[in-house]
């Protein structure tokens, strides 16, 4: 069989860059295969995708050598329009890809551009709407849809063209865990029913492996580092070396001193052969200690019986009550639209509660203005581009002080100090635009930190970040929390973040607080996980399958052990 996509000694360099982004790529993908492409940001995995759909070199100019054929065609000659008949691309940004005013129009978009007659469009749209299960939504506007639904509309929009290859660019980036699981399921169904060739570009390996993939291609610094079956890959340490997160149960097995073998099928924890490993895991569980509980400190932020609704009779939040103590680092979790953002809007004073109180350091803040609250509670938005309002880094960080009339000398001193804390001091005279996404995020955190807030609220601090940048941002926040005693609240649906960095998770589902417990408990409780659109951690399955009765205890131990390993690593690298 001939490959449908074939790179031969392919090298590509963007016009604006000094070094090639892809180097001597040799890769063959056969019709009907389902291939996962992983790699850290900047590794060239997205460029690889752009080469396949013709965005390179038409939208992103550059020079290439070697050869690339897709379905017998050269994308660089066929053009974006020509390739769109063969390769359907589902972009990461579901809002950007949703162009139509309603679902039906968006699905029909490619057909409209091909001058397909209207009655034929109706039947084609109905057909693919059935496939991705959006038939009841056809006349809805994008604002009425959830992220997962928008993504299914995007899939329908490319399926309608009857393409041979489906290319998914980070399909999980904006979805909560349960919705992500459904997306992977749907991709798998399309793969099987429609016999398409599927390419998934993603760094959330464990989530993609929820359903079988034929091969995993690892890209590192522009080269193909590995190209093998998932079971084989998980038995190596390539992932760790390339800075990609392994599935948690794999990490746990390694902590327990196990060496994984491909023949034990580690791709899925549910079906993995654990006989060789069970005893070691049990022994490890017995031996690892649990942290000593620290005495509870005084409350920093208390939310008492909060109710809120935009339209009366249609409550967004009901009876929310919790307490966050000084120096805690906690997460607020729940599916999109559950009311998490509403809660942070209430705390910051953008909207006012119908009932209930918010206490800060013991006193009611009901009569405090947004600005006054902003001095003690800092809010960091998800997208740094929506926060940065000055072209220069120094000015951006100084902004909050400048509008409060702080003397210039003091501004300079405090800004420099904050920039040092955030590791941005060497860039102080740079324009913000010269920074990477992660660095911009730091700038937005610095611009809040400069006001010395007691509490920091971050909305999805690590969304769209690969493992390396995720760790960088989270370690930085941890340091702020530990060294400066700042209370940190993170609104997230990243289960890793919850597990690894927070001591407590407040779970909100359908406007109600359904749990306020350790992440280990939340993520091992099926009922809570289901209601909040989370998903049980694979550590739970590992514990159960290894005959450990106290699964939450196992997860707790794993987290504690991990933290010590990271701590150790950090100390070593500091020397």
């Amino acid at each position, binding site marked *: 069989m001939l490959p449908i996509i074939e790179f031969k000694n392919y090298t590509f360099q963007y016009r604006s860059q000094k070094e090639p982004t892809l180097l001597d790529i040799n890769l063959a993908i056969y019709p009907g295969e389902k291939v996962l492409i992983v790699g850290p940001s900047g590794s060239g995995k997205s460029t690889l995708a752009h080469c396949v759909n013709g965005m390179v070199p038409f939208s992103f100019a550059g020079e290439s050598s070697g050869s690339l054929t897709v379905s017998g065609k050269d994308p660089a000659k066929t053009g974006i329009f020509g390739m769109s008949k063969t390769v359907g691309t589902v972009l990461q940004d579901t809002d950007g890809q949703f162009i139509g005013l309603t679902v039906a129009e968006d699905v029909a978009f490619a057909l409209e551009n091909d001058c397909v007659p209207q009655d034929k469009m109706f039947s084609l749209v109905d057909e693919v709407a059935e496939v991705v299960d959006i038939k009841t939504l056809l006349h809805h506007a994008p604002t009425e849809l959830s992220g997962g639904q928008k993504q299914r509309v995007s899939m329908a929009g490319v399926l309608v063209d009857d393409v041979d290859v489906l290319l998914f660019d980070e399909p999980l980036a904006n979805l909560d865990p349960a919705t992500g699981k459904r997306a992977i399921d749907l991709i798998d169904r399309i793969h099987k029913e429609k016999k398409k060739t599927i390419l998934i570009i993603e760094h959330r390996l464990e989530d993609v492996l929820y359903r079988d993939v034929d091969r995993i291609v690892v890209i590192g610094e522009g080269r193909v580092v590995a190209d093998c079956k998932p079971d084989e890959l998980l038995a190596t340490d390539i992932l760790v070396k390339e800075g990609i997160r392994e599935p948690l149960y794999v990490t746990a097995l390694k902590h327990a001193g196990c060496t994984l073998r491909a023949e034990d099928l580690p791709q899925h924890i549910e079906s993995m052969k654990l006989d060789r490993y069970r005893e070691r895991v049990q022994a490890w569980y017995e031996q690892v200690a649990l942290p000593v509980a620290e005495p509870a400190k005084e409350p920093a932020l208390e939310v008492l019986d909060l109710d809120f609704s935009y339209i009366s009779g249609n409550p967004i939040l009901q009876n929310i009550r919790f307490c966050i103590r000084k120096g805690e680092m906690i997460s607020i979790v729940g599916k999109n639209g559950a009311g998490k953002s509403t809660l942070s809007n209430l705390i910051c004073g953008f909207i006012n509660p119908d009932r209930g109180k918010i206490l800060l350091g013991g006193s009611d803040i009901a009569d405090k203005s947004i600005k006054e609250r902003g001095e003690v509670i800092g809010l960091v938005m998800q997208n740094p581009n929506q926060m940065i309002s*000055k*072209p220069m880094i120094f000015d951006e960080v100084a902004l909050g002080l400048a509008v409060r009339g702080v003397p210039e000398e003091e501004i300079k001193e405090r800004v420099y100090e904050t920039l040092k804390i955030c590791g941005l*001091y*060497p*860039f*102080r*005279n*740079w*324009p913000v*635009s*010269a920074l990477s996404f992660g660095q911009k995020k730091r700038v937005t955190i610095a611009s809040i930190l400069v006001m010395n807030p007691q509490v920091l609220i971050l909305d999805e601090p690590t969304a769209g970040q690969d493992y390396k940048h995720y760790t960088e941002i989270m370690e930085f926040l941890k340091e702020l929390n530990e060294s400066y005693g700042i209370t940190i609240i993170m609104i997230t649906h990243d289960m890793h973040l919850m597990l690894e960095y927070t001591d407590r998770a407040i779970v909100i589902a359908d406007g109600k607080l359904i749990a306020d417990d350790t992440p280990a408990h939340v993520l091992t409780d099926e009922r809570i996980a289901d209601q909040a659109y989370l998903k049980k951690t694979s550590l739970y399955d590992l514990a159960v399958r290894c005959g450990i009765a106290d699964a939450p205890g196992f997860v707790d131990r794993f987290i504690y052990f991990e933290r010590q390993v990271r701590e150790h690593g950090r100390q070593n690298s500091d020397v």
Partner: protein
Amino acid sequence: MNKKFGVKEVVAIGIGTALFIVLTNVQIPVGFIPNTALQTRAAVLAFFAAVFGPVVGGVVGFLGHALGDALFYGSVWWSWVFPEAVFGVIVGLCAAKYKIKEGSFGGKEIAMFNVVQAIGNAAAWIVVAPILDIVIYAEPANKVFTQGATACVLNIVIIGILGTLLLVAYSKVGAKSGSLSKED
């Protein structure tokens, strides 16, 4: 000209118009003159015209004003819609000369942009708008010229300040990072 009108320009018109519509009632009250306000949307129109050229500028002005008025106020005052398009076209005509994408929107270009925007505003609000008001609605000349002159001055002010600030910042975004070095 024709070749340059691609997908990107279509989207720029769409998003530009959306911004213009949303900013329709984001105004800065002048304070000392009642019922007059600086229109932030004018600065955004000038920005789009200066970055994307006369076609995008003209169409965003026309559609933005017509749709914005229709959606917010339920009426379309054609005598004020056309001048908005005229303004967008005039500012856009010299788009290449501002060198915004090259990252060198400096002193000379700023002066140039402001001269052009002042001419554009004068043409739109002191010439086209009052004439249309007289022709269509037979309104008194002294009233419509006073109105037009006020709008002209207010727009020159907000575009001169806010528009220039936005363009300077956007131009810097395109600046090369190669010339930067870390400091200790």
